[in-house]
């Protein structure tokens, strides 16, 4: 390889790099932890409806997005206009730091609103539920209560995502502790329960049989079931219902477009897309397809363990520490 060839290669490489995006009409940029298929579908439908808005998104884990936001804030400006993840505590914290721009959607009255002291800083646009996913190839008796996974049938093969990495996992652990106390977690550990990396990984491991069951997020599990995985998601009577909020950043130059997007997600069309991905919508008039076997929204809210967000945030570090302490003993 001659130097000259290298230089040619180099110029070629530089040509390949896309330049700065062309300045378009109205713009909208979203940071979200929603999976590609959901946000992709929403984008398609939204852009079809508002062709004048150039919408794009960054889809990554909530932890990564929040780290990115932290660095952006430190250096001056937050790039995104809208944030949409499933980590409710993050939103409370951002609100406390005054980074969020309140917006109360017109349809708020028609929605199921799981968030207390609602002021429009962030709005729930979807309800995530967690249950016990188990591998039907290996487990014949479906678990019916949270205590069932402490039985010998699940010995050494029940997984929970690391609450230090997943806010959903943290909230679930925290709610289970609230409902059943720390002895429940100790009981799980005594039965050989394991801590996995992320919410996706524990479900993958359950599907492969590395775990027999796991504390699992609905849409992750149901998507795999849809594709043929031998999994079933069981919901014990006390349900874990965790909202996914959406919010606009203060100082965003595109608040108009941002509001349009939130309205769209909350519209019947938007909520139908949400429901079709295997999660509960926040509208009572939108039904989750039957193949997912999810309880209706109203029933889920009734069965849900009530969440005290203030306590949740105050105890986060201590709870995680105690949990990992037990699980890594």
């Amino acid at each position, binding site marked *: 390889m001659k130097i000259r060839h290298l230089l040619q*290669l180099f110029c070629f490489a*530089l040509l390949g790099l896309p330049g700065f995006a062309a300045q378009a009409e109205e713009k909208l940029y979203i940071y979200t932890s929603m999976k*590609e298929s959901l946000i992709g579908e929403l984008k398609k439908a939204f852009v079809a409806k508002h062709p004048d808005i150039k919408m794009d998104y960054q889809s990554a*884990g909530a932890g990564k997005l929040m780290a990115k936001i932290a660095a952006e804030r430190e250096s001056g*400006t937050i790039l995104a206009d809208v944030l949409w993840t499933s980590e409710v505590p993050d939103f409370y914290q951002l609100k406390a730091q005054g980074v969020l721009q309140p917006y109360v959607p017109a349809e708020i009255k028609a929605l199921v609103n799981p968030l207390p002291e609602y002021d429009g800083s962030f709005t729930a646009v979807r309800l995530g539920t967690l249950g016990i996913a188990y591998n039907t190839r290996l487990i014949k008796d479906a678990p019916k209560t949270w205590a069932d996974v402490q039985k010998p049938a699940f010995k050494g093969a029940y997984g929970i995502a690391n609450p230090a990495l997943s806010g959903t996992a943290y909230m679930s652990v925290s709610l289970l502790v609230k409902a059943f106390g720390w002895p429940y977690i100790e009981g799980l550990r005594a039965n050989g329960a394991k801590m996995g990396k992320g*919410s*996706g990984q524990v479900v*993958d491991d359950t599907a492969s049989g590395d775990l027999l069951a796991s504390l699992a997020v609905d849409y992750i599990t149901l998507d795999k079931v849809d594709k043929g995985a031998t*999994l079933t998601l069981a919901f014990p009577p006390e349900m874990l219902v965790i909202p996914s909020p959406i919010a606009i950043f203060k100082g965003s130059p595109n608040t108009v477009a941002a509001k349009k997007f939130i309205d769209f997600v909350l519209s019947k069309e938007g909520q139908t897309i949400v429901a079709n991905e295997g999660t509960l919508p926040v509208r009572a008039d939108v039904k989750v397809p039957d193949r997912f076997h999810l309880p209706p929204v109203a029933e889920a809210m009734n069965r849900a363990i009530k969440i005290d967000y203030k306590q949740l945030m105050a105890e986060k570090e201590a709870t995680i520490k105690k949990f990992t302490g037990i699980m890594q003993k």
Partner: protein
Amino acid sequence: MNNAGTSRSGTPQILFGLAVGILVIFVAVPVLLIFFNALWVHGRFNVADVVNVLREPDTYKALLNSLILASGVTVTGTLVGTFFAWLVTRTDLPYKGAMKVLFLVPFMLPSFIGALAWKMLLSPRSGYINRLFVDVFGFDGPVFNIYSYGGIIAVETMYLFPFVFIQVCGALERMDPTLEESARISGADLFTITRKITIPLVLPSILSGSLLIMLYSMAHFGTVAVLGIEAGIYNIPTLIYERIHQSAGSFDAIRTGTVLSMVLVFTAAFIIWLQNKVLARGRYQIIAGKSFRPAELKLRGLRVPLLLFCFAYIGFTIVLPTTTIFMVGGLRTYGLPFALENMTLDNYHHILFEWDLTRDAIWNSISLGLASALITMFAGVIISYVIVKMKVRGKGLLEFLGMLPFSVPGSVIALGVILAWSGKFGINLYNTVWIILIAYIARYMAFSLKANSAALEQVHDSLVEAARASGATMWQALRDIVIPLVRPGMVAAFFLIFLPALRELTVSVLLYGPTSRTIGVAIYTLSEDGRFRSRPRSRARRVRGHAGAVRLRQDHDAAHGSGLRRYR
């Protein structure tokens, strides 16, 4: 010992200034900036976090784990890499050209993919190999447990040994075989020659490769995250990852993470210092002014056994996990048994032909990989030249700055790059592809510095001085003499950068924007939220990209080979 850096002519100064500028601005500033932000809060020294980090027993446990894992990987990776490098360059082993390429395959795969493959094969409950032993051979329980120190070290070794392999191959190709031959004439056996002559002579390359393995492994997150958590094995990078991911959008939490990463920096600094101590004991200049003929060692009776051994190694560490990943990619969903009714080509079809993000991502990654590899390669030669061949004050500092980003986890680098290049200093590259390019340069500079310094160490000063005495300026001597002679080192640097850059994830996932998704990001997007089975699909496409890289490498080898023939 070229002192012409003090000469009055302008060009070299400008060029060296440029190289040093690249080093400082692109490489050092982001990392220093993030440490500065971590240690100084509102103009005050951040005592609280430092005390917390130092007081937390987890820190020490994690550091110990980091060191145990990194040392293990370094020892095994160096042995494996050196052995295979010697085998494919200096012996008459059959098919060694093909093997040289095959040994590089692991380097093209993200190690977390490898970790997942091995988890599928060797996890105690459901690993296919363990199941084979239990179900078919009637063992009582799993034979292997990948969730262990040994398992993590073995997997990291498989993916990191190319650091040593690539560099030692380069050094051995340049080495004077008469040194070996004269030892053989004086009656030394093969083992003695290797131990007493060959190994010591390529020591700079071995050590620089080991250093890369050590530092990489210390700051490596993926494998430990996938395989370690079940056995409660964590290291500094996984701790940092936890801290950063708990930021909730506030920089305060990130500070703890970055303070923690300074533990890594100090350890890395110590290791670099130690290596320089070892290297300082003797300077090894293998390409002396005298020229020589390369020769091969006849393996004779060992030829077939060693060939079989190589096949077994390649089969077990490369073909097996790669096939596993491809098979899983063909499953309708992750976790199903490998049965015909569960297999489908839809996944591959979707990623290759339907998902438009893939196309952009592949294009972006190839462009970024080429650009960063070329820039870093040339800048690396010049900076290494300053470090190795010039008597300049503070060149140790230059070397340290170059290695610095390598010793901290990628996510910390990415945060630093955001701090430095999103308008704070008047230049806003944020959300463009250029910021990823800068981050890649920062992240991979260490590869280039190490590969090029090792190559330069071996080029005798008199060759450059002869050019200067012939009337060549320093720049002309660099262009006409040094660069052609260190070309193997530069090529090594190019591939050390291009291959991992193609699949880079940690940095790009924090920096990508709407038009700048990379292959790593595409894979990640698919794998988040538990859609692992989708991941390998995009790999098929990427492997095509790699095939191009491999062809490139072969082309180079062919050119090099003909060069050697001309020498004969």
